[in-house]
């Protein structure tokens, strides 16, 4: 289940999933809740990492270790809690990442050993298992360093042992554990001077706290999908899309890069920011923080003043959102999200005649797009430049137009990279070929598969004749609508509807299953929708899709497959 799904369950449903005494399936649910809560707060844990190497990945390592443990039991239906715990321990051991991950795996190992072969776990056994977990964790090192995750599991075990004398309620004991863990985490700077110097608590200990807290939150009916505070890695900050969520009155976007002082407290910082503005994001990378916020005109300098008190500001970027939004509305070509190419994987370059078609190519995973086709053929230089900087030498070009195939082949002979040209003469052929792309597979096999796929689609094109002429035995008057099937002129008519009908008949549409219409910039969407309805009435059992293609001159590009 996902964080959201787990969070939606009612308290009664949750208690049903975790019956007391705990059996294997109950432990699985608790494990999942702990893992999800840790994952939700992963970046908070990452931001605490200072010792011994400031690489900021404790949270990630612990999540991966927990994930490995969970994967081991995800499909298991076993109800014996002891055997279940042994599986968890095995998964954690195999997947242990980093120092804290190894310690976590030892905790699970000890926990499993104490559960032995017991069918269920009561509170007494839980306390014993935590004691054994602590003992096993401490055995793994000659000189245990206090003020770490080891101290936290020690305090948790001690609290559990005390609590079982007082109560036999599982929920109460879990709460005692969370409180003890929290207090223990807060004490870590007193035990480990380097934490105090850096002004943080121990990251591994905090991660362990999140695991137990997640279990308790689940039992208690709290949500698991919303982090208390969130710090993203810089690369994950989504400032492009933050624009989409501009609220009324939030006129300015302020982005500040800064290095915080050692006394920096992220939660307080968030609290302060949320009083000033909205759309707050804080990212961190190599010690530098980046803050993003939307604020009203009057308070546009407040985030700067506030941040200045907490650290050294490196850079401030401020933009007028209202002006930017207007510009965006006028801009028909928003930036495309192309697929980044990993070194040595196959990269595809597609020639695309329209912005809508480019977006579809982008969503299918092309690495680069060259604008052109139909009337404006891209130059060899443009084609060459599109892939020269990609970190791979396995390149596939989709020309998507018969006039570009020659140029593409020319490009292949001009570069040291290994370039294959799939001779696609139309955009739908290009789409069809893209479905066969597996970037990390064998180059020659992929080229072959894409060549094959290209022929599996029938292509129709609808455009307006620019002069009077007779081609392929068809008489065409200037201004008439003409239909091309697989590049061959088949009819000239007065309306687009007639041309489409003739085309679909010529393409033996009855033998296929799906008709896709890509409409160009010269035709109204309402017109296209009427047309689609008409086609639907003729071919009621076909799937019919309409996409914006944005290509010039051609009202419609149609693929039939």
């Amino acid at each position, binding site marked *: 289940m996902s964080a959201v799904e787990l969070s939606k369950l009612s308290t009664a449903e949750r208690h049903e999933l975790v019956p007391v005494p705990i059996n294997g399936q109950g432990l699985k649910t608790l494990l999942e809740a702990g893992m999800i809560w840790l994952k939700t707060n992963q970046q908070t844990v990452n931001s605490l990492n200072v010792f011994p190497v400031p690489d900021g990945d404790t949270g990630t390592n612990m999540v991966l270790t927990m994930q490995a443990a969970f994967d081991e039991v995800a499909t298991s239906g076993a109800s014996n809690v002891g055997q279940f715990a042994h599986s968890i321990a095995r998964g954690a051991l195999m997947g242990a990442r980093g120092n804290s991950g*190894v310690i976590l795996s030892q905790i699970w190992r000890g926990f*499993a050993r104490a559960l032995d072969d017991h069918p269920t776990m009561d509170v007494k056994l839980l306390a014993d298992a935590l004691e054994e977990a602590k003992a096993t964790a401490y055995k793994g090192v000659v000189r245990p360093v206090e003020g770490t995750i080891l101290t936290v599991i020690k305090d948790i075990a001690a609290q559990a042992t005390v609590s079982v004398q007082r109560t036999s309620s599982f929920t109460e004991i879990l709460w005692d554990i969370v409180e003890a863990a929290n207090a223990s985490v807060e004490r870590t700077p007193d035990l480990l001077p380097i934490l105090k110097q850096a002004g943080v608590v121990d990251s591994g200990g905090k991660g362990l706290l999140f695991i137990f807290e997640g279990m308790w939150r689940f039992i208690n009916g709290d949500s698991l999908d919303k982090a208390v505070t969130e710090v993203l890695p810089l690369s994950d900050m989504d400032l492009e899309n933050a624009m989409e969520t501009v609220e009324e009155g939030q006129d300015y976007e302020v982005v500040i890069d800064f290095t915080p002082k050692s006394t920096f407290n992220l939660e307080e910082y968030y609290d302060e920011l949320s009083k000033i503005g909205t759309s707050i994001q804080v990212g961190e990378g190599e010690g530098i923080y980046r803050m993003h916020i939307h604020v009203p005109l009057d308070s546009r300098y407040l985030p700067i003043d506030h941040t200045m008190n907490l650290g050294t500001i490196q850079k401030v970027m401020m933009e007028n959102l209202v002006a930017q939004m207007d510009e965006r509305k006028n801009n028909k070509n928003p930036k495309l999200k192309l697929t980044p190419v990993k070194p040595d994987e196959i990269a595809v370059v597609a020639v695309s005649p329209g912005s809508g078609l480019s977006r579809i190519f982008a969503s299918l995973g092309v690495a680069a797009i060259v604008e052109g086709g139909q009337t404006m053929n891209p130059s060899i230089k443009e084609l060459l430049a599109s892939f020269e900087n990609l970190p791979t030498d396995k390149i596939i070009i989709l020309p998507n137009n018969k006039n570009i195939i020659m140029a593409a082949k020319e490009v292949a002979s001009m570069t040291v990279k290994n370039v294959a040209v799939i001779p696609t003469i139309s955009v739908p052929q290009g789409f069809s070929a893209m479905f066969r792309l597996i970037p990390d597979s064998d180059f020659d096999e992929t080229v072959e598969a894409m060549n094959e796929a290209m022929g599996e689609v029938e292509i129709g094109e609808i455009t307006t004749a620019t002069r009077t002429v007779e081609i392929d035995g068809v008489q065409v008057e200037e201004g008439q609508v003409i239909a091309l099937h697989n590049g061959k002129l088949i009819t000239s008519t007065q309306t687009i509807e007639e041309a489409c009908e003739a085309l679909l008949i010529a393409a033996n549409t009855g033998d296929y299953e799906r008709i896709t219409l890509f409409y160009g910039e010269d035709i109204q969407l309402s017109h296209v929708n009427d047309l689609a309805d008409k086609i639907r009435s003729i071919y009621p059992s076909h799937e019919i899709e309409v996409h914006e293609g944005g290509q010039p001159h051609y009202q419609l590009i149609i693929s039939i497959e």
Partner: protein
Amino acid sequence: MAEIENKHNELGSILIQKDAIASIARQSTLQSYGVVGLAPKNLIENIRQLFNKDAKYGVEVEFDHDGLVIDIFIVVEYGTRIKSITNSVVNSVKYNVEKTVGLPVRRINVHVRGLRISNMD
């Protein structure tokens, strides 16, 4: 005893013995999770250790112009993920030696000489 010259100033030079660096490496290795002990490099060291506690036990330090090369011989707890443990030994020894001595560490070789089995599951 080999000494590594670290810094000059107008009053003289600072010389650091390899033993000193070995002690630092040794300490941070023993604090690394999963390491339950150091192991002798060879038979002679094994015998010598019986009579005389040696700071270099289980650790070997070499120096060339590019930096320090440290070899560490360890015993690991059975049932832990050895790859993760050796990685963290490398990281913490590098961090502590570079921080305290100020010399670049070029290579750290971790030799797992054995496993200690304290519990069978």
